[in-house]
């Protein structure tokens, strides 16, 4: 720490940002009137070098990063590769964003900023910075949209194609994923409870179950398409097969989680097998079961989409992705990816929320970090 209150990494970043701004200012002098915002940013970042004499607030770095983003996005024109000093602005803006995040993290650790709210700000800044860089690089360097479309084009496509995206979502998620997920998880749970009664079966099935969970089960997709036809039934079947084994293995492990002393207590109460199962062992297995439910939530969506590559009616997310690639409608494909990511995260999030409600007693939930 020095007078400006910065660590060594922060000093390097501050110096890099300020000096890049200075160079950018010199380079942009000939075209000063063309991009006034950019010139303003360069000037201000040069001024920020004053921090080595006079401490500057962390929020100023954030404001400079935002100014850089606005200036860069405003300076984008179609069909023209950006001149050199724009790239310097991108570099300086990135340095400011990084510096901002570094100083925020340091301030949170030192306790001078509250944890709630501020800690959400850091990943948000990182994500927005990625989006801005993506937009500026793809449009500024004239990357062909066939290779990587800019986020703005994907967003526009998303909005105009909502009916198609919704139909695909219903076909893939509502018709294939949800029934397959429900059947696979319930079957895994049921078989695990049955197997649990017989040590012989448990000894036989557990190694095979562990082995099966590591296999590329997704490869059965062509077989399922042959057996169950092109429509959602074959996709649901793939999802069932993919979700069954993780559930089986986790539940069997979870049913052993209740300790001997707790089982002894149930025995002294003269509890029946059923009572012990419902009141002790299944609740004790809940963290394991939810672990499997969370793993399966992402597996299920992937399984359904990949299964659609092997044959599908003319609707569905996998169908749209494979034909979109063929027709070079890459922005539609990315919109479909966004739908899949949102659906997958929401599915995972719902299960995580239910888990917090059901396993409120577990140390990992009580500690506040799931």
């Amino acid at each position: 720490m020095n007078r400006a209150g910065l660590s060594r990494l922060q000093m390097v970043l501050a110096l890099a940002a300020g000096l890049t701004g200075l160079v950018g200012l010199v380079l942009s002098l000939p075209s000063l009137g063309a991009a006034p915002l950019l010139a303003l940013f360069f000037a201000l970042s040069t001024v920020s070098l004053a921090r080595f004499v006079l401490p500057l607030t962390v929020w100023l770095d954030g404001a400079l990063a935002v100014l850089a983003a606005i200036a860069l996005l405003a300076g984008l024109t179609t069909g023209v590769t950006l001149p050199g000093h724009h790239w310097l602005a991108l570099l300086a803006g990135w340095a400011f964003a990084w510096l901002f995040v570094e100083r925020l993290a340091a301030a949170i650790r030192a306790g001078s900023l509250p944890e709630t709210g501020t800690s959400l700000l850091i990943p948000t800044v990182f994500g927005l910075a990625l989006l801005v860089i993506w937009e500026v690089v793809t449009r500024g360097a004239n990357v062909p949209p066939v290779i990587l479309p800019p986020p703005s084009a994907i967003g526009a496509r998303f909005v105009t194609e909502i009916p198609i995206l919704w139909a695909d979502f219903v076909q893939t998620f509502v018709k294939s994923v949800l029934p397959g997920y429900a059947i696979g998880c319930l079957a895994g749970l049921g078989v695990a409870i049955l197997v649990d009664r017989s040590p012989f079966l448990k000894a036989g099935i557990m190694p095979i179950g562990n082995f099966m969970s590591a296999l590329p089960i997704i490869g059965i997709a062509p077989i399922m398409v042959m057996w169950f036809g092109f429509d959602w039934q074959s996709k649901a079947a793939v999802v069932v097969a993919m979700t069954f084994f993780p559930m089986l293995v986790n539940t069997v492990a979870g049913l052993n989680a209740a300790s001997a002393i707790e089982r002894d207590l149930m025995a002294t109460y003269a509890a029946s097998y059923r009572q012990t199962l419902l009141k002790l062992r299944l609740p004790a297995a809940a963290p394991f079961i939810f672990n499997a439910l969370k793993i399966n939530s992402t597996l299920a969506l992937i399984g359904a989409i990949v299964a659609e590559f092997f044959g599908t009616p003319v609707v569905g997310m996998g169908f749209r992705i494979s034909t979109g690639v063929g027709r070079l409608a890459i922005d539609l494909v990315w919109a479909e990816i966004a739908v899949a990511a949102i659906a997958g995260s929401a599915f995972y999030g719902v299960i995580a929320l239910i888990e917090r409600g059901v396993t409120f007693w577990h140390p990992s939930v009580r500690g506040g970090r799931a």
Partner: protein
Amino acid sequence: MNRFIPVLTIVLAILVIWYAAAIPMNAAWQTTLNTRAELVDLSFASFATQTWNQDKPVLPAPHQVVGEIWNATVALEFTSRRSLAFHAWITLSATLLGFALGTVLGVGLAVAIIHNDASDRSLMPWIIASQTIPILAVAPMVVVGLGAMGLTGLVPKSLISMYLSFFPVVVGMVKGLRSPEAIQLDLLRTYDASSWQVFWKLRWPAAMPFLFASMKVGIAISLIGAVVAELSNAAGGGLGVRLLTGSYNGQTVQIWAALFIAAGLAAILVAIVGSAERWVNARMGVRV
């Protein structure tokens, strides 16, 4: 060894169910064939034998799959386009390259996260979010996209494998590198150890069990990533291509054989990581 008999029993049961299921599943087509050939009054035994030996059965019998695996690996030249060993090698090389890249990336990210508060707070949520993008589902598109940029062959497939396998490694290594307890860190501080020494003498050894557990998951999904990435590029070869062409031509036996080869490959890879784990543990003096 007391696990051997139960496992063997279950495997035998699966085989019996498989053979039994093959009869009704292939029966309809076999009946059609027999009617055309004007074969009547077949005994059940010979009808069952027929259903187990069809050319393109709905469900191939186990011995057909084993026979196809034998014919397509040992009986063929390795360089033949029909050799499953050749295709398995293509998939395996992509898997291994992707797994190596993913492990290096994962360990690197974990080290950055451990040593820098800002990267912990900014990276970790996005690493988790990165896995909600079903990259496996868009793997064929990524391969096509990278192909347009001049990247073909092994590299695009390995990148998919890398994307899938770095995640468990990051999560496991962050946990592992943070696993030394405060009292152990304090001891090193009383020794005036540098952060370099703390890393190599305490954090790294403490993270080894976590690393191997993650690597077992990582290598399995690397293989899946490589197989799915192959679906888009029929000319490139690989087990995924065999699955796809088998599916287009109705060659069920070929699909099952490719599937079993992939399964065997996954089992071998996980077993290799497992034995590496035991070797490292033994060298580090871990008593089981």
